[in-house]
């Protein structure tokens, strides 16, 4: 209840600030005099290089991911030549989650980040336990009897990962993957919209969104929701395709993106248009600095970004304080 009231208040503030936020999120700017007569259906946004009404973008994005869900992982490997695995590993490394952390993986789809997260905390926990055993061998009997009492009353907090995605097909593929990998404990799958998350305030330690935020219609809303559901001290991490700085690499990257990727999409997944949308949506996403200021505007502190592979992918990170 509180969440929806807050959402209404936020929307009212957003409507009055529309002209400022409109340009920041790439929605086409309108003259101020039309501000009171506009409705969501008349506003337009980009869908790749196309301009579409805002209401339609979400539907079309849903259709894209419904079509590609089955071949999503294979296509990722083919398009990035396996490098996407390294990017996701680097995200986990920067995250360095401790056992007991709660992760919300938005646009988590097929679950890559969550699986890595659970694996990471599992190995961290093992390391901790090994260290405890090693040091426990020289404790005095007083310390040992103290440790017995703590073990019985209050077990170590388990880490949990919640995979949230708007698309049911992607979640289905993710669940099947989890079953085949044998990962079940600490994982839950929730259907939800990044602009309106079905969670209470101050719930999660870490919020990640990997290669998903550029598909969201209102990025600022998604950022505000991220701020809401994170605990104070929680970390926001966003992995996304970004602008390549080196001009030579940029030309190679463009040529590869526009010539090769739709062809791969057609040959492997039988779907040219979805992958054409993919490479176009990357070009429409704001640059590293612009996105950093958007995150700061949403209310995060200590916002930083790290470029991977010369800027092909950027990791943005911010804290809720």
């Amino acid at each position: 209840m509180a969440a929806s009231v807050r959402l209404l208040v936020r929307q009212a503030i957003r409507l009055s600030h529309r002209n400022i936020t409109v340009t920041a999120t790439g929605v086409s700017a309108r003259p101020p005099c039309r501000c009171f007569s506009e409705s969501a259906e008349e506003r337009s946004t980009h869908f790749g290089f196309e301009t579409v009404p805002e209401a339609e973008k979400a539907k079309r994005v849903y259709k894209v991911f419904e079509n590609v869900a089955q071949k999503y992982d294979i296509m990722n490997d083919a398009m990035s030549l396996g490098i996407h695995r390294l990017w996701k590993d680097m995200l986990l490394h920067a995250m360095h989650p401790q056992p007991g952390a709660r992760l919300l993986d938005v646009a988590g789809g097929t679950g890559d980040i969550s699986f890595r997260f659970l694996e990471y905390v599992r190995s961290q926990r093992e390391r901790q336990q090994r260290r405890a055993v090693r040091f426990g061998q020289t404790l005095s009997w007083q310390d040992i009897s103290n440790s017995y009492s703590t073990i019985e009353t209050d077990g170590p907090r388990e880490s949990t990962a919640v995979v949230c995605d708007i698309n049911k097909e992607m979640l289905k593929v993710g669940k099947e993957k989890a079953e085949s990998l044998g990962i079940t404990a600490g994982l839950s799958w929730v259907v939800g919209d990044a602009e309106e998350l079905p969670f209470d305030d101050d719930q999660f330690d870490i919020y990640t969104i990997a290669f998903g935020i550029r598909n969201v219609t209102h990025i600022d809303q998604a950022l505000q929701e991220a701020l809401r559901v994170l605990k104070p001290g929680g970390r926001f991490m966003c992995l996304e395709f970004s602008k390549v700085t080196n001009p030579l690499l940029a030309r190679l990257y463009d040529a590869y993106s526009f010539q090769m990727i739709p062809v791969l999409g057609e040959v492997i997944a039988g779907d040219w248009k979805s992958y054409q949308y993919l490479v176009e949506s990357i070009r429409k996403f704001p640059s590293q600095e612009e996105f950093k200021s958007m995150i700061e505007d949403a209310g995060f502190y200590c916002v930083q970004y790290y470029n991977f592979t010369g800027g092909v992918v950027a990791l943005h990170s911010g804290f809720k304080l």
Partner: protein
Amino acid sequence: MWLLIPFRWINRRRHCFTVSKVVCVQQLHSSSTEFTNIHYDGLYPGHIPTTAVQKALLSIGSGVAALQNPYRHDMVAVLGETTGHLALIKLRDRMRNDPEGYAVLTERPRIRLSTLDLTKMASLPDGSFGREYLRFLEDNDVTPDSRADVKFVDNEELAYVMQRYREVHDLLHTLLGMPTNMLGEVAVKWFEAAQTGLPMCALGAVLGPLRLNASRLQSLFTSLGPWALQSGRRARCVLSIFYERRWEQSLEDLQRELNIEPPPIIPKAKKKT
């Protein structure tokens, strides 16, 4: 009689194209891709403009994919589209030079379940082309609507020729009396390769026999194959025939008109349950 109504479709990345022919409502394609239903850029519904580099990559990729998994009909279709430019031009010119073919090119008929009058065709006498075609569809459990739409041909007329070729394929089965098992398909491919010169047909004709067992290979090379090639070379251009107006014609009559001899042997049709 050409009706010239200019349409202007603005392609978001390229210059304006003017499509100056009537686009038949039946040509608006089916549910294969949702995106192109609402609007499309390109010369025809379903058209995806591609550069030469993309076409080259597509032909290699689709060739590999089709070889690995022959059930990927969409890959066979893409291979045909990306490699068939010259053959399509020759086919189109042959159609233009034939009066009936010219009528097909102007009126652009499409063979789909929605355009066929099935009850009327079922009431036709046995031995008529329409009745035999319907029997072929039922016996082999196929439908004319399963043909992929043309995507990568960058000329609207040639795209129609390609689409017509795909839709006539089933009619060819009826005309040649070949079932849809592997041997029948290879025989039809040999006929099509001789007739159309499409590289994809030639590739299929060469690689198809690799999947046949020894006895079928023998019948292919000794009797069925040479018959198919000869018929293909001698027959009138099969794309030039306005089949939609010939349902009542007797099959034998049509075969004689097209210069197609009856097959030496008929490979046993597999009745699909």
